[in-house]
């Protein structure tokens, strides 16, 4: 295909991506180094019959004019990144000096919004991913032994947790584990504590959000592994059987090595997707116990006071996080490409 033809074919999609993905990234970068203008104050001296009084008021007209002249705000460099809502270097140093043990330091760190969100985001990402891969693998192995007709039915129900809107899925689970819901009642009965409530406990909240994460993503791993099992070379299994391999050894030394490229694929995709965990925090109404980077951005953007600069700074840091998680994927794609040509 000629360059010219390629250009015209690619133009619409390329334009859409440049305007609505590349440009916003640049715009977020720029916004993150500007802060909104402070109001302009004027001091007026009012002289009346009883002497003169100095009054400081906001000069609405001047403030408005300044905001219109420079809609981005004033340039503050990296200040927003370093403030209390983000990297909080000053508070971190304070915590380091005041706490006597490493544990105490980390406890104080967790109270800072950015580090608290980071702690949950990373825990969620790195706990969910291996567990959902394991669960998906076991489901795939089990479903593979079923008869053809049952397989379709099982796949249908297995797809539901993944296909359903994340916010809706998390609400459905949350209503069940609510202290008045069926699972919540059951758990309270099991624990012998009628006042047991997930909403009141940070560890329980983290666990239930992680369970939601596994529940909603395991089907993806299952479907991918199940497709991989269909291409399993039958002669290798037979050779292993002739060599006297037990069923477990066949799985361990034939099936899993065959699925390994798919495991890597699912792991890389899920690490990136779990890093943006957001909807379950809204659905579980969990922001008092667990926040994520995406949730902080959402929270800054919403409401009456749209804190664009703060949201932009968190966005940039999220993008850096995603880039770190993405780098192995890029290296892999690059290697594949080099291998092909």
């Amino acid at each position, binding site marked *: 295909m000629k360059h010219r033809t390629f250009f015209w074919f690619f133009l*619409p999609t390329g334009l859409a991506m440049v305007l609505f993905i590349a440009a916003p990234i640049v715009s977020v970068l720029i916004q993150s180094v500007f802060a909104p203008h402070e109001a302009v104050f004027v001091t007026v001296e009012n002289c009346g019959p009883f002497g003169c009084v100095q009054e400081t008021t906001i000069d609405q007209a001047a403030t408005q004019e300044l905001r219109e002249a420079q809609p981005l705000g004033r340039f503050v460099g990296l200040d927003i990144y370093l403030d209390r809502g983000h990297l909080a270097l000053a508070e971190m140093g304070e915590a380091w000096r005041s706490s006597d043990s490493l544990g105490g330091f980390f406890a104080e760190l967790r109270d800072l919004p950015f580090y608290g969100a980071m702690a949950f985001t990373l825990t969620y990402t790195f706990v969910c991913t291996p567990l959902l891969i394991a669960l998906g693998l076991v489901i795939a192995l089990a479903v593979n032994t079923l008869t053809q007709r049952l397989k379709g039915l099982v796949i249908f129900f297995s797809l539901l947790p993944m296909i359903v809107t994340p916010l809706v899925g998390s609400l459905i689970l949350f209503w069940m584990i609510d202290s008045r819901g069926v699972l919540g009642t059951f758990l309270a009965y099991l624990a012998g504590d009628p006042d047991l409530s997930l909403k009141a406990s940070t560890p329980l909240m983290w666990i239930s959000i992680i369970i939601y994460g596994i529940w909603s993503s395991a089907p993806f791993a299952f479907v991918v592994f199940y497709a991989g099992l269909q291409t399993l070379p039958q002669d290798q299994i037979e050779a292993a*059987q002739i060599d006297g391999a037990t069923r477990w050894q066949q799985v361990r030394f034939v099936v899993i090595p065959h699925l390994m490229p798919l495991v890597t694929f699912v792991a890389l995709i899920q690490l990136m997707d779990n890093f943006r965990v957001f909807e379950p925090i809204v659905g579980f109404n969990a922001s008092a116990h667990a926040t994520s980077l995406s949730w902080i951005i959402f929270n800054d953007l919403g409401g009456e006071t749209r804190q664009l600069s703060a949201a932009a700074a968190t966005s940039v840091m999220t993008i850096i996080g995603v880039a770190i998680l993405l780098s192995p994927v890029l290296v892999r794609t690059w290697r594949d490409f080099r291998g092909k040509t």
Partner: protein
Amino acid sequence: MASEAQRPPLSLRLATNGFIVVWLILAAFPFLWTFWGSFKVELDFFSIADWTNALTGTNTRETHGSAFTLAGYEGAWVQEEFWRNVINTFIVCFFVVLTSLTIGTLGGYALSRSGFKYVFWLLIIALIFRAMPPITLVAGYMLPFFEWNIWGILPTTIIVLVAINQPFTLWMLHSFFQNIPKELDESAKVDGCTQFQAFRHVIVPVMWPGVITTGLFSFLLAYNDFAVTSMLLSESNRTMVPEIAAFLGTTYTEGNVMFAVAAVVSATAPLFVLVMFFQRQIVSGLTAGAVKG
């Protein structure tokens, strides 16, 4: 095909089947439970006294005279006018799928037919864009959209969702088009067609399986999106998902949780039907990228 020697022992078969039953309950029970509960009153669905009330509907019978009530649906659809949000969702989904398939097919086709090095880099850039969480882009949209006065309306959201959809659409269609033999359109070009005519008359008639699968995923992305729609749509233009989130804020205080439950069930129903009819395409779409890569 399985010989007698390959048949698993009874204990293993029981364990496998038992595990599948447990997984099916985990996967399906929450949906059934919520569906059943959506026809009850709040005191039954969230029962403090006795959890079996949710099954029998004791309080529902006291209030409404029957064990099932449509009060939640009536509250959501009539009183809170949820149907407006349903219509908005379907407008958004329809145009997102239409636009993103149109421009995505052109782009994906070009990527699959051009052998130059920049194709690889374009695909890599698309992969990077695919990894960006949409919420990180939203901060970048706000200021220009306010400035140009296009914030809050459906067309803006549609275009944004189309753009966010493109990287994934391109990757998927690129791999589908690569499976269509190049000789098809090459021979049409030898016969004197331009590249576009070759695409129009030779490729378009055979591309539908791939396009339908990709379209399904575009639909799901638009339908399931919460971050973009909740930030970019004004209150009167909300789609279903942000409206459900808004219900939560107001209904927990007003004691109308059942409205939200009914809305959640209403929003799940189309997806249920979708999986029922397009299960094969969804499975093939999920595995298309994986098995090859």
